[in-house]
């Protein structure tokens, strides 16, 4: 039986295309695409932490570089459903434990044809226990590697140790990249991607050139540079003509260039998530009434207006607005300080001061925390904002404070539940641990029927909305900037197929 990809963009994502078109319009009209030229793209740098090893990718800039050189078996579409890439098609059998994947006719930069052995070698390399930092591990955790095999040079059979109907989504995950069999030297990367590797200095530069034999057709630009720069430098470099594309700019920059037309802003509305995590394993949030009370205290519109400078949408305590499996019919939760106070009074939680643990690890964290603490104060609860060191924040906030700052990029809803909301999730930010929730998740994951699986995932999501400690207050617009002469950049949520994609771009 073969799975059909759902390629339709629903809900607000329809807006995406419209606003992108509208913006592309101001950047040069209806010229014919041209070939040639050098595209310099700026991403937030990670200093010496940046890596060329496609399996150790963690930062956006790493992923952008790897996307230029390599391909994955699948990628995610704009609704976060899987889209075939090196996997031309797939079939699933035996209750979602056996998957047959048909590979595309693709070539590596060294002229070698893509074969099943390359896929098996890549998975073995990712799952190697000696490489602790490889990011694809958890997404391939259902793979029963010794029993996977090559049926013929272009067909791989993957066997799983438990049913997993989401495997095609897992294959699109961060770091699940296909390298050639025997790939050992990440300093000389060879892939099937649209660009051939040129040079790399961690924390600074990366260059690559057009690969004419790419299976999807050669890119239009000759040369791609991916450069590291922090937020201010990205804005300044773009405006002073040192780059053609800047990934992640802030709303202030968008307002500034809207006034002087020195750059176009490519908007993907509301595709990431900003939240506060209420730790449900400790007082006072072990009482669901208190959790609800805090969700009623938040003035989401004010948070969006100030912290996101209005460039975003109000959140509804749930991750993944607009993505596949998102329950569309939930009522929007809004501010109700009266009811919040009465709930808190009933729970006896009005007079206990709480700690909101935050840091400047992500833009807007401290600002949102300060504003929310102020809103809590107005509702009669004292919340102290504690700002910790940003370098270790992601680990510290699991243990510190009753409330924590949280943000999440775009990922499929099942993956979000898997790494954030299960008893064993390494990054369970709201300390949500319920055996029956875990069981329901496993049941959904092993359900092959699409409609049935969707219903199960939506049920899990409803429970998160009602009871879990996730106070999602906003979905920031994803803002990228480009000079007026850059064309062919589509707006797309991060981590999806059209994100950081430069093989369709062209310069006028």
């Amino acid at each position, binding site marked *: 039986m073969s799975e059909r990809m759902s390629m339709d963009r629903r809900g607000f994502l329809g807006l995406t295309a419209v606003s992108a078109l509208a913006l592309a319009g101001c950047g040069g009209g209806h010229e014919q695409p041209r070939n040639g030229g050098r595209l310099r793209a700026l991403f937030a740098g990670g200093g010496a932490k940046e890596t060329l090893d496609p399996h150790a990718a963690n930062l956006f800039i790493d992923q952008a570089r790897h996307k230029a050189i390599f391909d994955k078996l699948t990628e995610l579409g704009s609704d976060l459903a899987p889209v075939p890439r090196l996997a031309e098609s797939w079939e699933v059998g035996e209750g979602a434990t056996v998957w047959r994947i048909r590979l595309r006719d693709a070539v590596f930069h060294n002229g070698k044809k893509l074969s099943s052995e390359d896929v098996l070698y890549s998975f073995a390399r990712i799952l190697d226990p000696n490489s602790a930092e490889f990011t694809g591990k958890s997404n391939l955790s259902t793979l029963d590697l010794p029993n996977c095999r090559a049926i013929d040079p272009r067909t791989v059979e993957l066997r799983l140790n438990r049913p997993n109907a989401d495997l095609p989504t897992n294959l699109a995950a961060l770091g699940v990249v296909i390298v050639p069999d025997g790939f050992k030297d990440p300093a000389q990367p060879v892939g099937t991607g649209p660009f051939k590797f040129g040079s790399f200095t961690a924390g600074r530069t990366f260059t690559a050139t057009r690969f004419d034999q790419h299976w999807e057709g050669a890119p239009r630009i000759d040369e791609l540079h991916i450069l590291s720069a922090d937020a201010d430098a990205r804005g300044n470099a773009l405006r002073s003509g040192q780059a053609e594309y800047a990934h992640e700019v*802030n*709303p*202030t*920059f968008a307002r500034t260039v809207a006034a*002087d037309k020195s750059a176009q802003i490519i908007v993907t509305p509301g595709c990431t998530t900003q939240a506060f995590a209420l730790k449900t394993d400790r007082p006072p949030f072990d009482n669901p009434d208190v959790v609800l009370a805090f969700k009623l205290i938040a003035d989401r519109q*004010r948070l969006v207006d100030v912290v996101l400078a209005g460039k975003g949408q109000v959140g509804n305590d749930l991750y993944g607005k607009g993505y596949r499996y998102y329950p569309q019919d939930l009522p929007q939760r809004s501010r109700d300080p009266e009811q919040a106070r009465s709930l808190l009074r009933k729970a006896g939680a009005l007079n206990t001061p709480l700690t909101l643990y935050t840091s*400047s690890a992500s833009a807007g964290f401290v600002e949102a925390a*300060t504003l929310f603490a102020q809103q809590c104060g107005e509702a009669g609860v004292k919340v102290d904002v504690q*700002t910790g060191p940003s*370098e270790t924040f992601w680990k510290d906030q699991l243990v510190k404070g009753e409330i924590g700052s949280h943000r999440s990029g775009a990922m499929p809803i099942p993956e979000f539940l898997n790494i954030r909301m299960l008893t064993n999730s390494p990054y369970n930010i709201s300390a949500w641990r319920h055996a029956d929730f875990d069981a329901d998740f496993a049941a959904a994951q092993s359900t092959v029927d699409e409609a049935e699986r969707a219903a199960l995932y939506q049920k899990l999501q409803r429970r998160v909305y009602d009871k879990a400690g996730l106070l999602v207050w906003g979905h920031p617009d994803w803002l990228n900037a480009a000079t007026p002469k850059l064309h062919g950049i589509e707006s797309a949520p991060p981590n999806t197929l059209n994100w950081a994609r430069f093989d369709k771009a062209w310069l006028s």
Partner: protein
Amino acid sequence: MRRVITVLLLAVPVAAAVLGPLIADLFATQGGLPYGVDGPLGTDNLGRDVLAQLLKGGATSLGVAAGAVLLSYLVGGLIGLTAASARSRTVDDALIRPLDVLLPLPSLLVVSVVAIGGGASLVKVGLAVAVINLPTVARLVRAAALSAASGPVVEALRMQGESWWRIQLGFIGRSVLASVTADIGTRLTLAIFLVASANFLGLGLSPTSADWAVSIARNRDGLLLQPWAALAPAAMLVACTLGLNLLADGLLARARRLEVR
């Protein structure tokens, strides 16, 4: 004329720092939008009134620097005086040499390193600035005390049978005070710069703080949308350091005139 300018330049930021926090809330407009036009100086990136922020932000900008310099004079002065009055060279060396270890380190780096570890802590930044100033202050005080102690006046006082305490506090202390007065303006300016630089780099206070340097860093993005949010705190810092430099020049000139006489 010069005196009037000096006083004015210093009085505005110092008054803002000392009295500002008390009256800031009178100006605060609530619930504005980012980089808006509400209030006399508009709003900042979080929609807060720039004037109110300006009044709140001086205490940390100037207070930490002043506290740090005061602390380094107290501790460094004590070390310097003790070293100068020590009869044995070993004691002198034991007091002064260990401080030299810190000398070759760029000061802003020391502050940054200290601040990174602690997250946002004013006390830490202040302590770091005090420690950085310690070696130079100790050496300055020691040199001033030594030149006074070896001069003919102390010899005469000693021959007259004046007590050690009278000589130390009365004569040597006063001549040390003269060098300190000549030094204090420049040292304060450098301390203000140091604290401000650390805060500007995001290595000290929380990024939402009203501190002048933090405000400049936070609102620089909006320079073209609402310039006052960044320029007003910058003007305060510059007024203050300019006033201090003028003051230091005046004090130095006076010290030199006294010397000549």
